[in-house]
C-alpha cells in the first residue's frame, strides 16, 4: 500500500522517513513543513507526485528528479535539481550555486535569482530564471535551454556545446567559444512557448540568444588562447 496526499513535518519525522515515503508513493500531493535547510530533500523522486516544500532547503533539493512536480516556497541551496531527468521544479525564492547541474530533461523555474554556475554541464534541461544568474553559468552546457530575465555574470556559456542561452538583461561577459546568435522567428516562438510553460509573462523578442561558436570542438593550434 502506498500513501498519498500527506503532510510531513521535518521537525517530527526524519529526512530518511520522508524521502522513503516519497519514493514509495505512486501519485498524490505532499507537503513538507519545516524543511529547515535540510540537504537532499525530495531527491530521487520517480513518480508523478506533487510536492510542496514550505520553507528553505539545503543542497540537492529534488536532485535527479523524474516525473514529479516539486515547488519550494523558499530558497534552495547548492545543486537544486541536479541531474533532473523530467518533471518540474519551481523555486519561489533564490537558488544557490550549480542550479540544475547536468540536468538531462524537465524544467526548472526560479522566481528569484540563481548564483554561480547555473546550468553547469546541462544536458537537456530547460532552466528559466526570473532574476539574475552568477558567473560561469552554463559552463560546458551540452544541451537544453537557459533563460535569464535579468542579468548574467561573467563568462556565460564558457566552453558551451549545443545548449541555447537566452538573456534579457546585461551579460557581464561571454566565456570562451560562446557567441551571440541571431534570434529568428522560430527561436522566438520556441522561447515564447517555454516562457509560457514556465508561467512567466515576457516578450521573447526582448531576449538575446547565445550559443556555441564551435571553434573548440576539435583541437586547432590557432585557437590555443581559448583552451
Amino acid at each position, binding site marked *: 500500500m502506498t500513501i498519498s496526499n500527506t503532510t510531513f513535518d521535518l521537525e517530527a519525522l526524519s529526512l530518511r522517513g520522508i*524521502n522513503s515515503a516519497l519514493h514509495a508513493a505512486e501519485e498524490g500531493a505532499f507537503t513538507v513543513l519545516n524543511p529547515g535547510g535540510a540537504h537532499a530533500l525530495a531527491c530521487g523522486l520517480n513518480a508523478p507526485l506533487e510536492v510542496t516544500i514550505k520553507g528553505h532547503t539545503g*543542497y540537492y533539493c529534488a536532485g535527479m528528479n523524474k516525473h514529479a512536480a516539486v515547488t519550494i516556497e523558499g530558497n534552495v541551496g547548492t545543486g537544486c535539481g541536479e541531474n533532473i531527468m523530467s518533471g518540474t521544479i519551481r523555486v519561489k525564492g533564490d537558488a544557490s550555486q550549480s542550479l540544475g547541474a*547536468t540536468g538531462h530533461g524537465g524544467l526548472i523555474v526560479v522566481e528569484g535569482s540563481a548564483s554561480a554556475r547555473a546550468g553547469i554541464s546541462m544536458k537537456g534541461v530547460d532552466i528559466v530564471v526570473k532574476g539574475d544568474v552568477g558567473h560561469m553559468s552554463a559552463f560546458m552546457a551540452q544541451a537544453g535551454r537557459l533563460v535569464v530575465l535579468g542579468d548574467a555574470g561573467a563568462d556565460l556559456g564558457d566552453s558551451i556545446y549545443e545548449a541555447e542561452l537566452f538573456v534579457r538583461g546585461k551579460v557581464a561577459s561571454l566565456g570562451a567559444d560562446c557567441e551571440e546568435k541571431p534570434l529568428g522567428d522560430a527561436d522566438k516562438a520556441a522561447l515564447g512557448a517555454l516562457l509560457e510553460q514556465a508561467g512567466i509573462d515576457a516578450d521573447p523578442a526582448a531576449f538575446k540568444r547565445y550559443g556555441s561558436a564551435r571553434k573548440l570542438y576539435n583541437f586547432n593550434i590557432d585557437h590555443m588562447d581559448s583552451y
Partner: protein
Amino acid sequence: MADYSDSPRTVPRKSATFDDYTLSEIRRAAATGIYDIRGGGTKRHLPTFDDLVFLGASMSRYPLEGYRERCDTDVVLGTRFAKKPLHLKIPITIAGMSFGSLSANAKEALGRGASAMGTSTTTGDGGMTDEEREHSSLLVYQYLPSRYGMNPDDLRRADAIEVVVGQGAKPGGGGMLLGQKISPRVAHMRTLPEGVDQRSACRHPDWTGPDDLEIKIHELREITDWEKPIYVKVGAARPYYDTALAVKSGADVVVVDGMQGGTAATQEVFIEHVGIPTLPAVREAVRALRELDMHRTVQLVVSGGIRSGADVAKALAMGADAVSIGTAALVALGDNDPALEEEYQKLGTTAGCYDDWHEGLDPAGITTTEPELEKRLDPVKAGRRLRNYLSVMTMELQTLARANGKSHVKNLEPEDLAALTVEAAAMAQVPLAGTNWVPGQN
C-alpha cells in the same frame, strides 16, 4: 697545422638526457604544436611491488599444504553503511573503463570474465550500457564530473556507486576522448555532437571539497535508499589525507589508484609526472585508515600497475582489501598481442608499445568504437581469456598466502614482507631484506 684525420675518434655517444624518445618528442611537438596524448600508464621505471618479497614460512611459521588446506579469497565491500554490500569471490575487480574508450564488445568481455570469477566490473566516463549491465553480475557505476549518461535508473540498477575524484594517471585532470572515437552511439550517450573532441571537466559540477562530498554522498544514499555501497576513488596524490577525508565524507570503500594506473587518453606529461606510485600510496592509505580505526571497516581497493597474483598478495599484505585492474585486463582480452604485429607496424608501432588508443584504430578491437574493428573481438572468447587470467592470479595469490601460513588471503600482513631496495623499504615501511631496518623508524 697537424693532420688528425687518421687519429682515433670517440664513438658516437647518445645523451642520457636527450635520449631517442626525448628527441622524437621534441620533434613531434615542434611539428604539431600539441602535447602528446596517449593511453596506458606510466612507462618509466618506478618503485613497485617487485621491490618487495614474501618471507615465506620457516621454523617459526608453518605453511599450509598447497591444494589441500583451504585458503579462502572472498571479500565483502561496503560493510560500513550500505544495506547491500558487495560479496566478491576474489579480491580482484575490474576497474572503471568507459564505453567509448573501449568497444561494446570489450565491455561485454570484461563483464563475462569478471562474472565467471564472481567479481565486479565498473562502468566509466560515458555511462552504463545495457550490454555491460547484462553481462556483469556485479556492476559498479561511476559518478564522474562529466556525468555523461548519468541517470537515477542506472544508479538504482547498479550494485555499487563509485564517486570518482581522480585517477592515478592524472590526479587533477579531466577526461578526454578525441573526436575520432565519438561515434554516433557514444555521442548520443554523452549528449554531444558526433566527432567533437570531448573534454570532460576535472571537477564535479556541484560540489568541491570534503564537506560538500559528505552531502553529495548523503544525497546518493537517499536516492538509492541506502542500499548501495558508495566508493570514493582518488588518484594517488596525497593518499593519507585523501583517504582520511573520504572516510570522513562517509565513503564505504576508498579506491586509491597509483600513478602507474592506466588511462584511455591523457597527456603524456600528466601520465609520467603527476601523482605517486602505488607502493607508497597503499601504505599511506592504510595508515590513515588505521589512525581513524577504520581499517577493514571502510574497505580499501588499490589499483595502478597490478599484473599478477604476487602484486595482489603484496597489496593485501600491506593492508588493502582488494585490488582492481585495468591495463592487465585489456591485455588478457587481447590488447597489444604480438599476433597482430603486422598491423601494429602499419600504425608506426610494435606489439607491446601500442598506446595511441585515442585514435580509435586498435587492431585488436578493444580501444576502438569503429564498427569493423570492434567486430574483431569476440566477447565470449575474450571473456574466457579474462576469466582464465583472473583464475591464475587467484591461484598465485593463494600459493603465496599458503606459503606464509594463511588460510585466508586477507590474513597476509606486512610482517610477511621484506624490501629489496632502500626506497621500497622507506615507501612500504617494511624492513630492508636481511636487516631489521625500516627507514624513518629506527
